[in-house]
């Protein structure tokens, strides 16, 4: 059986998209975790709390998975999963309503088992939903345990926590777009090829497109990308300068390549 090929022009577009995505991934590392970590770090410092953590909703099976945590009592939560229909995080996730409880240990509904698994049982807890602005709805929960200066949470605390949650939701949204690109490529190829291509053939085309970038991790191209990634911390002026230098190099390289 010969593998039917999609329209070359369309395939070209898809290859370009795959290439950009691969380069972007390489440039940014794991921006989601890094951003979420910086958000819980800031949250725990600002509130002077024992712990802050972010749980993200994942499917199959449905669960809220604690991805990042900060604070003296936070570390034990990372990697834990809880049912989205249980506990305070589950309630906030299901209703989209921010909620704070104090004196939670005396609350029989409080999920003591989960708390004990983390090695820390809080006295007070505030949780706000992470709501993506475009379509997906609630994607997770930001949780804060035990503000040291007060046994309860004020309206301002809840609003501020909402601001941090919005940041986290935006970070998740941005990186999910990238993560979903592979899936999108598969779908697009599937549609272009109609029923003629099976999953394996589509996979082959996608990997051909991305592998075209040079699979060798040590190749000069990837070394260059890694160097560029390190430039990200530079200011606007320095980046401008690097851009100008690169432009000169590109101009120099163009005729060289023709000569080759």
């Amino acid at each position, binding site marked *: 059986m010969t593998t039917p090929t999609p329209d070359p022009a369309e395939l070209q577009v898809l290859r370009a998209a795959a290439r950009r995505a691969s380069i972007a991934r390489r440039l940014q590392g794991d921006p989601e975790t890094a951003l979420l970590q910086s958000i819980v770090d800031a949250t725990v410092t600002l509130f002077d709390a024992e712990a802050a953590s972010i749980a993200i909703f994942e499917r199959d099976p*449905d669960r809220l998975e604690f991805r990042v945590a900060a604070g003296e009592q936070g570390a034990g939560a990372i990697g834990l999963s809880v049912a989205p*229909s249980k506990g305070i995080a589950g*309630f906030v996730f299901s209703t*989209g*309503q921010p909620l704070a409880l104090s004196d*939670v240990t005396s*609350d029989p509904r409080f999920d003591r088992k989960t708390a004990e698994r983390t090695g820390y049982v809080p006295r007070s807890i505030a949780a*706000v939903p992470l709501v993506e602005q475009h379509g997906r709805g609630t994607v997770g929960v930001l949780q804060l345990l035990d503000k040291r200066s007060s046994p309860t949470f*004020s*309206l301002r605390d809840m609003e501020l926590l909402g601001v941090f949650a919005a940041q986290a939701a935006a970070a998740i949204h941005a990186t999910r777009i990238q993560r979903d690109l592979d899936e999108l490529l598969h779908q697009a190829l599937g549609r272009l090829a109609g029923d003629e291509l099976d999953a394996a053939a589509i996979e082959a085309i996608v990997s051909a497109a991305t592998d075209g970038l040079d699979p060798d991790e040590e190749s000069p191209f990837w070394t260059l990308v890694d160097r560029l990634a390190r430039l990200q911390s530079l200011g606007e002026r320095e980046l401008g300068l690097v851009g100008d230098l690169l432009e000169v190099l590109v101009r120099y390289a163009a005729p060289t390549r023709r000569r080759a």
Partner: protein
Amino acid sequence: MTDALVPAWSEPFSAAARDRLTRLPPLETIDRDWAFGGATGRGVRVAILDSGLESDHPALHGRVAESVAVELDKAGEPHVVADDHGDLFGHGTACGGIILGLAPEAELVSVRVLGSDLRGKGPAFAAGLEWALEHGVRVANLSLSSKSEAMFGVFHELADAAYFRNVLLVCAANNVPGPSYPSLFSSVLSVAAHDEPDPWRFYYNPSPPVEFGAWGVDVPIAWRDGGMTVATGNSFAAPHMAGLAALLASKHPGLTPFEAKAILAAVADNPRR
């Protein structure tokens, strides 16, 4: 052409009918005593769309008249069935306790729309609200909302149906930006929290979408398994307004949502203009 096909919108204003168009007393003569004085919520059914109600919780003192739950079948179609699961989280019971704290003789109807299946929560919530509208409730407490843009039309229609049937929808406002239905619709009582520890203290905000502010910070609440705890959130502000709405409805049975909002605005704790 038969008369039945002619919309008779002018009929209430005809010479024979307009004497029956009674109106409220002048707003400046309306005070809290007129609005709520002596009322207990008796005769008013209040639906609580939430996580269920723990009917034997002391804070609910036997006022739970009926409990149903919305379940989704394999095709995702919602069905309303009798419910004996109590309260999955404690949150519904908390709302019920707050309402009965203000309107002790109101009758509570639990419509559980939160459950283990999260895939269909928007449609389940809508089906629960529709059921409540068809089962004689006068006030519905919605301390939750749908974030799904796709549910706009469904909830808009239900909010209108409630308004035309004189059912007051009392909704917790959501602090998170983006869609939040039906709490953002103009016909509902949208409520956010204030931090003065007084269940009777509430404010009218003339800058919508959030029109009312009620106690929602460090509120002592009933919670699951007969327990109590202290909680903060707009979720707990809404049932304060629902309790007051139940009092109003029990004392003045014919009030429309439009009139009820006007009265609540008139007797709010705002400084006088």
